[in-house]
């Protein structure tokens, strides 16, 4: 068996041993789709937020069919990929967030999940997000977005990951550029109810937020981040986000 393993190893060429003619690549836990939108991808007078323009129909579950409708029409699918090597090929040939025009968004979502609240995978979920003043963070945002993507595709956000990719906690990550700030978001499939309900899920969601704040963004666990144009790392369910201010519950780490 030793010999077999040896023979097999000699046939395997990773990108490290042969960057031009490698014959194996590293599969990601899930396949991913990168989407993009900006004012130049939008038709005129179309709303920017998904909720108002996105039709509430079962068609939602088939990305291809509903891509022609509502706001998804303005969001361009850039690429699908399912390996580490393809991710970096994409990364090294695309524009980083610091070079995007204002009001642009990258949405990196698991293949088959639409970057909209209405998708089955998102509708019971929520998001961790942070808003960062643009001037101070222009030198950092590209690395923050890279590390956010790496934690997503490497599947290291969730402290108790499932073995079933169709059920994994993270559904996607987003970077948004606005005139005054950047926003980074992590979307989750589930959102905890009020504090006393569901302590396990709450702890799992909070772990994602702490991992985001400390390992990905590089802040101290106890650091206060809020300020002019800046927010803490905070979680909100999509259902609460729809309410716009009315009794909105937030989790902050």
């Amino acid at each position, binding site marked *: 068996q030793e010999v077999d*393993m040896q023979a097999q190893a000699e046939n395997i060429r990773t990108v490290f041993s042969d960057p031009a003619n490698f014959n*194996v690549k590293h*599969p990601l836990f899930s396949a991913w789709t990168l989407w993009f939108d900006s004012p130049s991808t939008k038709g005129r007078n179309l709303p920017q937020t998904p909720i108002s323009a996105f039709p509430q129909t079962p068609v939602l579950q088939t990305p291809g069919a509903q891509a022609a409708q509502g706001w998804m029409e303005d969001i361009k699918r*850039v690429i*699908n990929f399912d390996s580490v090597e*393809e991710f970096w090929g994409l990364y090294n040939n695309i524009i980083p967030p610091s070079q995007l025009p204002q009001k642009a968004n990258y949405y990196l979502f698991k293949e088959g999940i639409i970057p909209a609240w209405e998708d089955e995978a998102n509708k019971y979920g929520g998001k961790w997000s942070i808003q960062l003043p643009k001037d101070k963070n222009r030198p950092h945002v590209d690395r923050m977005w890279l590390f956010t993507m790496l934690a997503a595709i*490497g599947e*290291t956000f969730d402290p108790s990951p499932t073995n079933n990719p169709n059920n994994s906690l993270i559904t996607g990550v987003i970077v948004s550029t606005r005139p005054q700030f950047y926003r980074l978001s992590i979307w989750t499939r589930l959102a905890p109810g009020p504090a006393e309900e569901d302590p396990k899920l709450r702890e799992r969601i909070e772990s994602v937020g702490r991992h985001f704040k400390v390992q990905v963004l590089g802040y101290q666990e106890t650091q206060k981040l809020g300020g002019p144009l800046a927010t803490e790392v905070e979680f909100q369910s999509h259902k609460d986000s729809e309410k716009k201010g009315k009794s909105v519950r937030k989790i902050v780490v």
Partner: protein
Amino acid sequence: GPLDLSAAKVSRQSSLSTARLIEDINTIKYPEGISSPKPELNENAKPGQFRYDRDFLLQFMGVCKEKPPNLPPLDAIGLEPIDPSALAMSRGGSRGGGHR
């Protein structure tokens, strides 16, 4: 899709397209200086479904420079840098001359 002339410059078929996905991460031997993914991330991994730590993933950054064959021309989807010269600088100079 639209005609992409950049594809014509690629003389051989891209390894990105032809390489097969690794099924058992433990059979992979990396050259000296390259670390394996943290083993605790893949203790119960199903074939072909792996989790990777950031340090492992970052090792590919300077190696995987080739544009994926299925990446559309960026300007065709409205994806254009606000300052192309700054972009070139942030990439560490001209194409092909990048640092490892």
